[in-house]
């Protein structure tokens, strides 16, 4: 296994619509089993960074400098066909608002089965069996019943679990969770966070957690990057960034999150306990 799964070096993305850089000089690396968090407000460039990592920048956005190496390959050199092969099987993602990322006219189980068939080449029956297993593995009861339900018939928490199942089905090396818990209830949030933590432990999955919520990031991540206006204002281990924030902006963010009980996570022993 390579030393790092993903290396980002001085990534710069330009927004041609507003003619302003969306992301400037972002650098980080993630290895197998590692969890890195990207924190910032809306518009700080978190989502654009993720889309750049997936090779799915929206129209009018362009990578103007820097490089991204995924499993040792420079993604700038990839053709669309190579990208299609890589996505899902090497890198995958889940986003906010899970319902909108599923085809509303196809039962959810079939969409999971589709990924299994196409990306891992399983025959239909085996794919269906594996899909049911995966649904159970993401803590969905009545997997058979849920299998043929439509997205609009399921709750946000269920749908996000299903999307996670779909994302990990082809066994990617790295998963991006872009505001994956933001649209969910607090209790459901906790379950999803646990699920993600489990998966990184068991599967050696590298994980990028993007959130504006410091509590979520603090729970899951080992390292944090703080983005503001498209640039990295602070970077380091979770303890470094949250205990001794160097940048004023980071301090501001942490102060704002006091209300949400972040204090718990600011003492070393509590942190160790929470993550055990």
């Amino acid at each position, binding site marked *: 296994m390579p030393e790092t799964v993903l290396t980002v070096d001085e990534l710069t993305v330009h927004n*041609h*619509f507003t003619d302003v850089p969306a992301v400037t000089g972002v650098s980080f690396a993630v290895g197998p089993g590692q969890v890195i968090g990207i924190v910032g407000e809306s518009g700080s460039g978190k989502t654009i960074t993720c889309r750049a990592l997936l090779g799915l920048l929206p*129209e009018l956005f362009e990578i103007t400098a820097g490089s991204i190496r995924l499993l040792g390959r420079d993604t*700038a050199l990839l053709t669309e066909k190579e990208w299609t092969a890589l996505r899902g099987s090497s890198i995958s993602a889940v986003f906010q608002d899970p319902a909108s990322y599923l085809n509303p006219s196809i039962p959810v189980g079939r969409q999971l089965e589709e990924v299994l068939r196409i990306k891992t080449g399983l025959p239909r029956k085996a794919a269906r069996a594996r899909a049911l297993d995966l649904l159970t593995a993401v803590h969905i009861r009545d997997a058979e019943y849920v299998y043929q339900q439509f997205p609009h018939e399921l709750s946000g928490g269920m749908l996000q679990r299903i999307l996670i199942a779909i994302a990990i089905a082809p066994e990617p090396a790295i998963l991006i969770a872009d505001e994956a818990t933001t649209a969910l209830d607090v209790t459901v949030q906790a379950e999803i966070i646990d699920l993600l933590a489990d998966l990184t432990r068991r599967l050696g999955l590298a994980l990028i957690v993007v959130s504006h919520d410091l509590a979520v990031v603090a729970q899951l991540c080992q390292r944090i990057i703080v983005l503001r206006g498209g640039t990295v204002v602070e970077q380091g281990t979770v303890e470094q960034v949250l205990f001794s924030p160097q940048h004023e902006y980071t301090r501001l963010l942490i102060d704002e999150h006091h209300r949400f009980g972040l204090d718990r996570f600011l003492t070393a022993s509590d942190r160790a306990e929470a993550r055990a």
Partner: protein
Amino acid sequence: MLPRLIRLPAFWVASGILLLILFLGVFGHALAPLDPLKGSPAVLASPSAAHPFGTDYLGRDVLSRVLAGAPVSVLGAVEVAGIALVCGTVPGLLSVYLGRAFEWLTLRIIDTLIALPFLVFAVAMTALLGNGISQAMLSVGLLLAPVFYRVSRAAALQVSSSQYVEAATLAGASAAWVLRRHILPKVLAPLGIAAAGAAGTGLVIVASLTFLGIGVQPPAPTWGGLLASDLGYLDYQPYAPAFPIALIVLTVVALNLLADVLRDASGQSGQVLLKKRALRKAAKKKRRVLAITRAVQEG
């Protein structure tokens, strides 16, 4: 919206053509150079200086007949659009204020109206209500009302549920004031577009009805009637249908152009589109360069 509208050349083209047609519609009779009903021995003659569109099977001047036939079609179209507008918009706006039962009833009526084919209904109406163009136009206008109903209702709903209207109502504004000040501006563009469409449909239906001999008695000239007689003599004058057809198509094209222009003026700007296109071209070029670079590296 109006400033943007004025800047679009298509708007002037469409309006110009439509004003011309409208002019013909009103003054067509007076503009005909020769008596449209007067026959002559020069039967089925080709276009010439004396008869720019030629003559028909009774030696009558076709140009004069086309001009004299304009009012029936054009005014019929206007009538259809007008009736549809009134019959659709009023219930549409009211449905937002008059509650569920009214809404349900009107929606059922709408469903029924949509189910009836225009021409069959128009033909049936002339049988049942009397053989006149006005009756036919009335019925077609009713059939076209659903579009106006939907458009005006959608605009009214959107506005009435917005917060600034809620605030205004709390401050004492009456429904009429809300209607005039907020709903009307929002609804003008879509209504204009629908009216253009309805006028086009109306024109075609009038032409179809007169073609079938319904509504206006010969020998009064109508565009549809002209086409009907042209059909009989196609072997001798295969180009004859072109004149009435050209006018009909021209009018409908102009109406559609106007509708498109109204749509564009109330929509998104074209700047974004241009930028997207430029970037796509650049990306394509970049990919080509990279492919070559890679080929060179490997080779």
